[in-house]
């Protein structure tokens, strides 16, 4: 099962490597990881996507909680939540397919944010599935570069992950 673990962690040198080190040392896999400071600059928010059986996820969350720098965490997959990922895609855009590309981007509610005579850069946000779907509709040969942020997420409603 895919899990999205959202972590509030001390914004200190080495905090990220403690999390990454834990995963490699214990053989857990990280599908994606995003991290940035929160509105309180002493704290960072990390979102980590991982897969595993219930037992493994239970150990992962326990081991993460055990890290002294981790203040709080929540497995978003256990709650009603919203999930977004940012993707930038650079595509070969010859005259012939420019029109068609634009309409596909529209359908996916993306934006073309850079245009040259031969290329587009497309910006798109959405769930990871949606971004996958977009990539799947584009001719592989025309893709120059794909940059994805990894998923971030937030729970719905009033409750939140804070101090």
């Amino acid at each position, binding site marked *: 099962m895919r899990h999205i673990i959202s972590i509030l*962690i*001390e914004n200190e*040198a*080495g905090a990220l*490597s*403690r999390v990454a*080190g834990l995963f490699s*040392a214990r053989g857990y896999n990280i599908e994606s990881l995003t991290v940035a400071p929160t509105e309180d600059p002493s704290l960072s928010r990390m979102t980590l996507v991982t897969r595993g059986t219930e*037992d493994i996820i*239970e*150990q992962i969350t*326990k*081991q993460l*909680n*055990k890290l*002294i*720098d*981790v*203040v709080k965490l929540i497995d978003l997959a256990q709650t009603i939540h919203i999930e977004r990922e940012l993707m930038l895609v650079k595509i070969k855009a010859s005259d012939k397919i420019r029109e068609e590309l634009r309409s596909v981007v529209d359908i996916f509610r993306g934006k073309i944010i850079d245009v040259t005579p031969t290329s587009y850069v497309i910006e798109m946000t959405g769930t990871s599935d949606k971004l996958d779907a977009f990539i799947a509709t584009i001719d592989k040969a025309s893709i120059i570069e794909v940059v994805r942020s990894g998923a971030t997420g937030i729970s719905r409603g009033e409750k939140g992950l804070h*101090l």
Partner: protein
Amino acid sequence: MELNGAQIVIQSLKDEGVEYIFGYPGGAVLHLYDALFQQDDVKHILVRHEQGATHAADGYARATGKPGVVLVTSGPGATNAVTGIATAYMDSIPMVVISGQVPSAVIGSDAFQEVDMVGITRPCVKHNFLISDVSKIAETIKKAFYVATSGRPGPVVIDIPKDMTSPNVKVPYHYPKKVEMRSYHPATTGNKGQVKKAIELLLHAKRPIIYAGGGVVLGEGSHELTNLAKILGYPVTNTLMGLGAYPATDTQFVGMLGMHGTYEANMAMHESDLIVAIGVRFDDRVTGKLELFCPYAKIIHVDIDPASISKTVKVDVPIVGEVKLVIEQLIDGLKEAKYKIDKPASDAWWKLIDQWRSIDCLEFDRQSIAIKPQYVIEQLYQVTNGEAYVTSDVGQHQMWAAQYYPFDKPRRWINSGGLGTMGFGLPAAIGVKLAHPNADVACVTGDASIQMCIQELSTALQYKTPIKIINLNNSYMGMVRQWQEFSYQSRYSHSYMETIPDFVKLAEAYGHVGIRIDKPEDVRGALEKAFAMKDRTVFLDIITDRTENVYPMIEAGKAHNDMKLRVAIGTSTDRELS
């Protein structure tokens, strides 16, 4: 008061109540050594190898419950300390290690004796810190001691770049009495609902057993554990790390469990219908093959670390909390529920256990003309009236010490269980002796293990820590040889050393007394003589039966009821009895 960084470190240690610091100097810590020189409150013990410093501090910590403190220089000093840090980590021992680091300005430039200590130790510390501001030193040291000693204890490293201890930078000094960390809140009492569920199971068990371990020693819960066991009337087994947590000479004690545990302890675990696991972590040396582990039992697990619970074995009633407090909650709950021992069930269960006991799985050949290692430990027990602090190294001798020296008190049995670090015993014994100068301290070791930290004999002389080294000399890496005998058709690949030093001369060269014993009838006298020499370290080189094996043994992949015994018996358990 304005102090420089080096003075702040030493003053903080003083204010923390640190008695001993085990260390070894070098360039990056010279400012610290200068500050040490100018005071007498914190006593520095100069070891001969940084591994020795960590093990000595570890021994001190295990024997007292207080954190061990270590000081090493950057680079090789720091890396030499890593084995000892990992040893403490695996057994959850409180320790604070201060390592020197190259000056902040050159960190990351492959400077002379630079190594990323924070990075190297990350997987084997409870936490670590890199100092980047002189004014944060005192608070960081307070945090380090707090983290190391609270909750599930463990080692904490503080890496201090040389410029942070410079005599030229002075800042106001204040050592905080307390620290709060918003990200760290160790558990205390257990959840009431969970305790209730546990009581429910305790009330109805027919074949229960208490499986208690290192957590009871670490959490000072022996007294409470003993009370609980007496109220319940259950048999008690201890892990290797838990020996002494419950008095071994008490009739309810069935011995150690696990790979080299007693027949009765392992059989009782296998046949039980309720396991009360307290301060244990279901280590693979204890459980054997997981799929076959305790097939009929419900499990209650008390542990301060949620990550220890249901890590390898799923439990029915997890209770996160301090052993001492949770056991008190359990006792209160039992009183409230008017618990009474279920006499018929208890009698039937004990009858079964006594049958297993009658096999006498620890019996050995007492007529042997070669010295039996088990006999040596028995004699050691008698000569020291069971009151000694016993450290050990790793191997067969460790198992024999665990099996044949019944510990009645916690913190008397001091060994590396989780990492299994050869070389631990001698420096640990020095740390123990410093903590308890009037107690008998024995180091049970083997001819291979003792050579891993033998240089600490020099430390023992310098600081006058008279310990007794009991070297069970079988001229083999016995434990390795045993596995090769059982699993590799006796192909003894490199488990034998062509040359073993003359340990008597070696001891003498270090300024100690060396005695070689090769006849069973001389063992008792030599031990008495050694312990009578109160102010000397004595090295007893005891030539033992070379191919003796440790029994019982549960081989890899086997279950608790599938033990290899010295004298083979048919597996007999009467599952009808209940």
